[in-house]
């Protein structure tokens, strides 16, 4: 067969609607043979104008609206928003409320990480194990549904505390569910360390070096897998994190496998934090039981969402609606690093590498 008429480089589109992509993102990829030579990232397919909508709703309506920005970090958004409002109004959350905020946060982290790693296994092509991992995550989803009343939009946060409370029965239920998830997660970690299919597809693929990680300013598990030892829960503790035995996991390889492994280890840490929270849960009210007006002012707050650091800026005026709400989400920092990860990657690995930053476009483009 003659190869004279075949050009050396092709330009291929990946997305915005692509079978292997988690989120609507458009990549224009130049390939040389099977190797990626240049990447163009184009976003804007999930824009819904939520930043504008927040200025049309009251502070108390916005707690619910911010929860619906993203389904997987649906606890981090209202929590950080409520923290900003509390900072402006000088509201102090009761001690029990602080612990229950941590409980909600960590439960969401467990299910979010399990979801991302399960999708990685799906992209590796190990469908049966993907099904198994989603079933493990289902234990967590059932837990969320039983405690908060919804699988995704858990509605745990309110300005001044939390909306839910735990009794002995629900604490025993959570502990039982955590035991199951912990045992399964340990098995998954063992599989990730030994299974040939997973290792061959993910080791040394999509490498983000420590220097590039610093250049891109990546956050969350992506940063920690490249040796950037940074976690907002430790650097700027909020909720009850200053009182908990938090372990920050970091690896140095910066490949797809390391990012998955950081997430899996974090699941075990979250389960440990949850157990400590449930053990030390103080008595008293869970919220301030009031609906105060938020005075004019501005505040910046940040928290560690499952994908990394989320920052909220809130400016209020004399009206019940905020004047400006602006958030910077982890994916905004992380997606630039895809240029480095995808450079010289194989076409077959593109979807897997994109998945490994756990992109959340509904957060980023809101």
């Amino acid at each position, binding site marked *: 067969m003659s190869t004279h008429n075949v050009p050396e480089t092709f330009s291929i589109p990946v997305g915005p609607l692509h079978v292997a992509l988690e989120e609507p993102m458009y990549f224009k990829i130049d390939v040389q043979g099977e190797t990626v030579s240049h990447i163009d990232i184009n976003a804007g397919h999930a824009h819904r104008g939520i930043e504008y909508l927040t200025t049309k709703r009251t502070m*108390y*309506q916005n707690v*619910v609206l911010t929860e619906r920005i993203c389904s997987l970090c649906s606890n981090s958004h209202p929590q950080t928003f409520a923290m900003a409002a509390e900072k402006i109004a000088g509201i102090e959350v009761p001690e029990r409320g602080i612990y229950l905020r941590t409980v909600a946060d960590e439960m969401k982290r467990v299910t979010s990480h399990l979801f991302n790693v399960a999708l990685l296994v799906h992209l590796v092509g190990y469908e049966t194990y993907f099904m198994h991992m989603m079933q493990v995550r289902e234990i967590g989803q059932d837990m969320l549904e039983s405690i908060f*009343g919804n699988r995704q939009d858990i509605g745990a946060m309110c300005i001044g505390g939390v909306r839910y409370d735990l009794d002995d029965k629900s604490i025993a239920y959570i502990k039982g569910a955590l035991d199951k998830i912990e045992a399964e997660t340990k098995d998954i970690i*063992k599989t990730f360390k030994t299974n040939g299919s997973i290792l061959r597809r993910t080791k040394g693929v999509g490498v983000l070096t420590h220097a590039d990680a610093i250049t891109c300013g990546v956050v969350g598990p992506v940063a920690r897998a490249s040796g950037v030892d940074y976690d907002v829960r430790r650097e700027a503790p909020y909720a009850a994190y200053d009182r908990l035995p938090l372990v920050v996991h970091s690896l140095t390889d910066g490949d797809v496998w390391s990012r998955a492994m950081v997430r899996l280890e974090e699941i075990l840490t979250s389960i440990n934090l949850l157990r400590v929270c449930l053990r030390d849960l103080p008595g008293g009210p869970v919220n301030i039981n009031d609906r105060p007006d938020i005075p004019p002012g501005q505040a910046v707050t940040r928290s560690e969402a499952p994908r990394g650091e989320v920052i909220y800026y809130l400016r209020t005026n004399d009206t019940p609606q905020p004047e400006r709400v602006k958030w910077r989400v982890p994916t905004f920092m992380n997606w630039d690093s895809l240029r480095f990860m995808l450079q010289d990657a194989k076409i077959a690995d593109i979807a897997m590498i994109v998945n490994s930053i756990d992109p959340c476009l509904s957060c980023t483009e809101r």
Partner: protein
Amino acid sequence: MNFLTIFARNLKQGPQTEAFPLGPAFTPDRLRGRIEFKAESCEGCRICERVCPANAIRFAKTPDGMTFDCWHNTCVFCGNCEFYCPTDAIHQTNDWDLSHVNADKFDMVEHGLIPNQTCVDCGATALNTAPMVKNAKPPLSTEEVAEVRARCPKCRAKYLKNRKVPA
């Protein structure tokens, strides 16, 4: 080897999926589903209308009194109304089955009426809302609450002011 163990366990356990609609679906007690409104407990403060992020709740003045409507097709089931309601007049049940044919789409509404009444003191027409007496000290007895309830807002205030507080 690890996977073979899972395989054996799954073979023994059978399918993980629920049998719904042939069997019952997993429904926890705390599930946030259909809204239920109890007009007799409502204070008429309309806080639920103000905190509802989807504007699904509407109060309206009619010749019979004040109506309450919660549009289930607009509701996002966040539970803000129940959380901020001072008298537990609004409640989220764990009934999640809201499927309906298109012709019924305007009937997916929780409706309630706070009727008008004639004030026993001044004879004015006023809403028969639950009295806002949660913070009254000492707490009102059931008879006293009923007496307050039978009055218009002005006469309610007068009644509470003139109430003899035992020393």
